[in-house]
């Protein structure tokens, strides 16, 4: 497409990559505000259930591990796209999306589980802040999965030659960002409850 021009840029960074970094900067403020709110309201719920009544840190550790592993898969996918190895690239792209899917699946399980334990959006401050924070993160992961699957299909159709590695690299930036945000959420929301 047009972007594949060896365009002249003042900074030597392609437009799309620079633009995407800028976008990630604004995403930092977005999640920063959400996480800040969660922390500001932590322990302020007037009624239960409280985090200790709901969390299962083992389950969330597994899903966190899956998501982090998918970041590694993403690196591999980009590597093979750059190498021009279509099959390997496709496999790693699918693995990345799969890691994300497992994570979202765990999250869906967790949400239903919590709901059965009596926690809902409107139940108390903890439910409000927890569901909105992790829900927005989950929505970001889901968007990323769609993006990765689109790339997988393009790759399968042979529309992802190594000249278009930037398409994959930018998806990778997004995916790593979403992972890093999860590390912070996992620390601030889950681990903090068990750190005494």
């Amino acid at each position: 497409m047009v972007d594949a021009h060896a365009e002249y840029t003042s900074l030597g960074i392609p437009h799309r990559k620079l633009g995407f970094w800028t976008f990630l900067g604004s995403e930092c403020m977005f999640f920063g505000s959400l996480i800040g709110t969660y922390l500001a309201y932590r322990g302020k719920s007037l009624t239960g259930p409280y985090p200790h009544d709901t969390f299962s840190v083992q389950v969330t550790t597994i899903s966190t591990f899956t998501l982090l592993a998918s970041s590694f898969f993403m690196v591999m996918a980009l590597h093979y796209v750059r190498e021009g190895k279509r099959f390997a690239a496709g496999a790693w792209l699918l693995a990345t999306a799969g890691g994300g899917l497992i994570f979202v699946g765990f999250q869906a399980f967790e949400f239903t589980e919590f709901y059965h334990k009596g926690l809902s959006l409107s139940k108390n401050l903890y439910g409000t802040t927890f569901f909105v924070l992790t829900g927005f993160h989950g929505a970001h992961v889901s968007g990323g999965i769609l993006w990765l699957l689109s790339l997988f299909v393009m790759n399968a159709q042979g529309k992802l030659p190594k000249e278009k590695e930037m398409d994959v690299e930018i998806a990778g930036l997004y995916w790593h960002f979403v992972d890093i945000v999860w590390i912070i959420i996992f620390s601030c929301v889950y681990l903090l409850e068990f750190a005494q």
Partner: protein
Amino acid sequence: MATATHTLPHAHPAEQTGVWSWITTVDHKRIGILYGVSAFVLFMMGGLEALIMRMQLMGPNGKIVSAQMFNALFTMHGTTMIFMAIMPLGAAFFNYMTPLMIGARDVAFPRLNALSYWVFLFGAIFINSSFLFGTPPDAGWFAYAPLSNRTGTATHSVDFWILGLQILGVASMMAGVNFIVTILNMRAPGMTLMRMPVFVWMVLVVQFLVVLAFPIITVGLVFLMFDRLFGTNFYIPEAGGDPLLYQHLFWLFGHPEVYILILPAMGIVSEVLPTFSRKPLFGAEFVIFAGIAIGFLGFGVWSHHMFTTGLGPVADISFSFTTMLIAVPTAVKVFNWIATVWGGQLRFATPMLFALGFVFMFTIGGLSGFMHAVPAIDLQQQDTYFIVAHFHYVLFGGSILGLFAGIYYWYPKFMGRLMDERLGAIHFWMTMIGFNLTFFPMHFLGADGMPRRIYTYASWEGWSFWNHVATLGAFVIAAAQLVFLYNYLTSRVRGKIAGSDPWDGATLEWATSSPPPEWDFDRIPPVTSSRPLFDQKYHGAPKAPPGRDDGIHIPPPSYWPIIVGLGVAMIFGGAMTIPAHGPWITLTGFFTFVAGTFGWVFQPGYGYAPEEH
């Protein structure tokens, strides 16, 4: 395909005129005009709302409108002027001028630019459509919870406001990303950052503010929306939520927003004053760094809007300090502007009148702002007309006068003709007189204890005289804008032919024809200093050779932006109906958005080359 530029068709694939050409345009200049025209229409609406309020307050016990309508009017006046008039008027300039001033042929993402505009337009229509539904927003432009919560306002009025603002936020965000990339990445060879025109610098600072500040209000609004629609507890005191969280999130955005509104005007004035003084901007690098400093400090002063909420002495002491500190870069700018005029050969053309008016009036706003930085004084002035006076000196005396300076200054570039000077002077002086008649007495009213946002007052309160004066002034302002409108429209056919450089300008936009060709420059001009064109004219710097560059690439028109924009607007707009009628509008919007995005990504055609001479 990457190297296939030589196969670009020369023939125009679409009409150059007509409605369809405007709907599908991705040309930054046409998008700039679209922004300008829409914003001016909304500016007139916001002005009309103000005029009705002034009529109501002209004397005690006004009966022009009901309390509820008055409250809706000041809510929509503030919302309209900030998000739908001043911001997009700034956008009109940075769309039209930025590529021309940095020697680029377009913006980095032309279709994204069109999308920004359409999303903005749909957002503006969405918010204002609330009048047709009989539920205009009436919780104030700040919509503090719990008044804006379901218990405070049960109707959809606040939903219109929350969702509309999010739509407008999406538009600003996309424009922010686009222009950061454009400015950082598409400067003509030789144009280092410190050689960039100060206007472009201020636009860059503004875009960073937009990109970093809008997510914060988005979160604040999302919380409010969830509280209203899905029963969450973010701002519900009964559940342990704190209404002040909303204020923190709102003003963490809200104060940078003030600089989003004023910095483009400061940039325009920094272009106009040197041109009409026939001197370079005094201490340009100080003006630039002052702008950056204002941008940074803007994130650290928000709680000065909350001195009366009782945050405690530590917070008040800190925010008092940061707020006062902003006086330093602001004063540095004012001093540099005066030093620019000093020793020049001043021509009092209309752009210069407005730019001088800006310096004059903005300084007053800055001085009254310094008063509020002292919490002890702010306690007596918060939410009185003194504040109304202060920010109108900043946003009208500052932003609006600056933007008018820009319109008169660059009109010949847009239209190829000059605006009428006589009418311009009449417009300026009427605005100036009307403005001071309206807003200077408001300082007195504030010190006399008149609170803001009251729809009526009694005669024994002693506020009648200055209110009467202010209302007269408001009518003078309104009449002045009609003079402007007449001048603007008639000068398109009757104005003097401008030529490419009517003001003896120093920056690159004057190096191309008026109006510029679709590709902006036949040849990208060489840049060796911060005043490239001045150097060519007076110092014999090399000019671009005649003829036209090969391989100029004009992006194809596209209808996908308006489709994606419609999808975005429906996603947010439909959210309001979810609790009652289900998510159907939002889902339709989502599918429109996804389909539009795919259409966008796979749009065929690689643009075209300019027609041969």
